[in-house]
């Protein structure tokens, strides 16, 4: 079911990238993503568990590599690339963090509630990843990773006090970060007073609002967007929601929001029904990721919160983002499949018995 959503969105996306350049690329990546999705969906997600540490190491390595040899774009180093093929490690880092954290938290069991075994290592791990991504810099992704990890930590059984402490420090550091970098401060000021500088800082914010507002209830009609003619910067990536709002109106924006909510509901349901802690935490993480990113994007575009420059899951142009999201969906489906497995297949076929076990995280 989730796969249907995602693939239909991919097709819908084709309408929004206007030169074929984007469409073809997106279709290829989409197709590859779907193949991987199906493959992952059919794979027992528990096989990921032993891979958690290597994936994490790879991710951290890639993040470091980006900082050193990454390609710059729009004032930030976010891409690793060879010619046409560019990889944005930050996109995959989200999935990696989820898998790793799920494996780690699952191995902790009840001990997550303790300070030295729970909160401290947790803060160190996510802190390291966040700092690496912030160095690119990429605030949006950092915020999402924080949301993912905090939620996972909560679901894993963190105490209320731990959550409170995390919340306070998280918000505090976000506030500092947001005002530190010039362009982020610009975005903040655009949020609060876009009107004072309609051609500069406030341009993207105002144009997005105008596009959405102009769409009205019915929209201007598919393909009839005025705003995509350069009025909204990055209209095919971060600003795609504004274009949808302009072309198809409230009749598309509300259902779209609803779809994300359904996806979230289904995702958390999967988490709840998961057969083991690992699956539960991965499902929680993936669901939180997609939902938080969608809301961050739409909230920014509609000026409910400041713009953070994250793509809209499934809809924004962006090969890496799409591939990462589709991969995550594959994992989610896998968890769902095995979670719904009432026949006890999972129990009778533990991963360890079907495969040669190379290494596992030592359990404390």
């Amino acid at each position, binding site marked *: 079911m989730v796969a249907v959503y995602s693939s239909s969105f991919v097709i819908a996306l084709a309408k929004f990238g206007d030169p074929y350049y984007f469409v073809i690329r997106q279709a290829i990546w989409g197709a590859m993503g779907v193949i991987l999705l199906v493959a992952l969906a059919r794979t027992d997600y528990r096989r990921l568990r032993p891979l958690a540490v290597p994936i994490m190491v790879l991710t951290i390595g890639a993040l470091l590599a980006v900082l050193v040899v990454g390609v710059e774009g729009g004032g930030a180093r976010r891409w690793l690339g060879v010619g046409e093929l560019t990889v944005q490690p930050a996109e995959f880092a989200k999935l990696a963090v989820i898998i790793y954290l799920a494996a780690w938290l*699952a191995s902790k*069991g009840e001990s997550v509630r303790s300070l030295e075994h729970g909160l401290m290592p947790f803060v160190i791990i996510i802190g390291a990843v966040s700092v690496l991504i912030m160095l690119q810099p990429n605030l949006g992704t950092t915020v999402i990773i924080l949301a993912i990890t905090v*939620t996972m930590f*909560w*679901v894993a*059984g963190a105490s209320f006090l731990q959550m409170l402490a995390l919340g306070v420090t998280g918000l505090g550091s976000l506030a500092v970060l947001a005002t530190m970098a010039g362009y982020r401060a610009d975005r903040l000021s655009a949020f609060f007073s876009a009107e004072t500088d309609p051609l500069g800082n406030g341009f993207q914010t105002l*144009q997005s*609002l*105008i*596009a*959405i*507002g*102009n*769409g*009205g*209830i019915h929209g201007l009609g598919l393909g*009839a967007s*005025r*705003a995509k*003619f*350069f*009025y909204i910067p990055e209209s095919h990536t971060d600003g795609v929601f504004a274009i949808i*709002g302009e072309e198809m*109106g*409230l009749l598309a*924006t*509300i259902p779209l*929001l609803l779809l*994300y*909510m359904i996806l*979230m*509901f289904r995702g*958390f349901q999967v*988490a*709840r029904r*998961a*057969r*083991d*802690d*690992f*699956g*539960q935490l991965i499902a*929680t993480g993936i669901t*939180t990721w997609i*939902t*938080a990113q969608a*809301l961050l994007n*739409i*909230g920014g575009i*509609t*000026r*409910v919160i400041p713009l953070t420059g994250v793509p809209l899951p499934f809809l924004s142009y962006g090969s890496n983002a799409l591939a990462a999201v589709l991969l995550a969906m594959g994992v989610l489906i896998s968890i769902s499949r095995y979670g719904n497995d009432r026949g006890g297949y*999972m*129990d009778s076929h*533990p991963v*360890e018995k079907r495969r040669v076990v190379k290494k596992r995280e030592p359990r404390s």
Partner: protein
Amino acid sequence: MSHPKARPTRRVWLPAFFFGAFALVICARLVQLQVIEHDTYAARAKAELSGSQTIYARRGAILDRNGAVLATSVETWDIYVSSRSWRDPSTAATASAELARLLKADPAALRAEVATSELVDVPIRKKVDYETGLEIVNKGLPGIIALPNTGRVNPEGDVAASVLGFIGTDNTGLAGIEAAYNEVLQGQPGKAIYERDTSGEPIPYGHYVATEPRPGEDIVLTIDRYLQQMAEERLAAAIKDHRAVGGSIIMMDPATGEILALATSPGLVFSTLDLNDPQVLELLRNRAVTDLYEPGSVMKIVTAAAAIDAGAVTPDTTYYDSGIALIYDVPIKNWDDNVYGEQTMTGVLQNSINTGAIFMMQALEAKDPGGFQRYLDAFGFGKPTGIDLQGEATGIIRRTTDPDYSPVDLATQAFGQSISVTPVQMLTAVAAAINGGNVMRPHLVKAYIGQDGSRREVGPEVVGRAVSAETSATVRGMLNKVVDSDLNIHPGNPKFYTAGGKSGTANVPVPNGYDDTQIASFVGFAPLDQPEILVLVKIDENQDGLTGTAAAGPIFASLADDALRYMNIRPDKGAYVSQR
């Protein structure tokens, strides 16, 4: 090995609740944006998206009184480059090379101009001539936008440049008639409205709405281009001959106040106009209306007219000139230090006797205290004449109520000192003295011609009365005696036409007295009984030291002869008359 079972957790619903609440807020926001405030945003989108380009209306032409074109507009193009389009280096390279060839510019400079501009549409060249612009349009080069504009041409060259003025790149008049009558000439600009992308290119399916521009009206000047040219040439020659720094020649129809010719120097000259010259502002004003001078003895016309009109003197009233007049123990001498003895009032004008002018003023004041300055007011001194050029000076009269007034001022005003006037103001006052007493509004526009060909005349406008018709006739007679006496051959006496006139040679006032430099002028009219032209010839700071009579007089005489014959006025004296 046992497998860990998932904890049955309801904890997942807490983040779900937060997300759901946030989604609801966004939903509400969407309803607000797309339903409640839809109209506002739709209007803003329309405004944002609507590119509007001014379509300049055809600017009205400026014609001389006989319909000769002095200024008219031709079609040109304004060339812009979309900086967005030229962001692509290969596009910029090919397009700039081609554009540079057509505009005879440097391609690299063009690219740099576009690259460094903060505008979306970078103006490259305004008012490119029609053929070149059309070639650029037909090339269809990427990123190049050509908009129609109009350019101003002056078919008569520099003739009347200082009267006509010129227009800026935005088609607004910046000087002269172009500025004073900008509203009339410019018409109503039209507007092309279209939806566009941010590079300014119309969006394919956007609506085009255009309000048609309403062309400006043509203006017919009172100026006669031939007389104007004549005045300009003679002024230039006079400045050269007498080694002067400048001057004015103004020719007016005294009965109507129509200005037939208005030459000033320094002044605007199209062929040498350089708007980047910091001194250019000095050239843009029309000094005949903006600059003040002390008129000197020309003022005696007004003093005589006032005294006669008040019944204080007649042309034959006599007084005794001792060469000096004591005003409150301040001695005032004649200009030439002569002692003329017993003189008539006509003789006072003929010999330009300062003490005689003081006598006239005193006679007037004796009969009517305060009357002299009331006459000055009636003649229009100290206030604008209302001529249709910008920046007219009002002139200054030192009044009896002014704190630094001394009775000497009244005496010197009688022969044209302690009073400053513009050349046009002086001419208007003399016109009132000789035209039957009407103070006319001097004007440069004779008629408007609408685009439908309808013509609206600007009639003569009587501002007030200065003297009676009888006084005026008497003054004409006296002034005729100045140039046409039996005593000597006056240089200001035309050969073929009866005339009248009066010279003035005034020192240039400086703080604490007067400079050695002088302004030599002559005001004359012809023919005597029905004056067709009234001319002021004013030569500033002539280095040869000649008086108004000697320097400016002959210019009036020859100008009157030539102008009146050109105007088909029958000569009323000299060889022509006797031959008939």
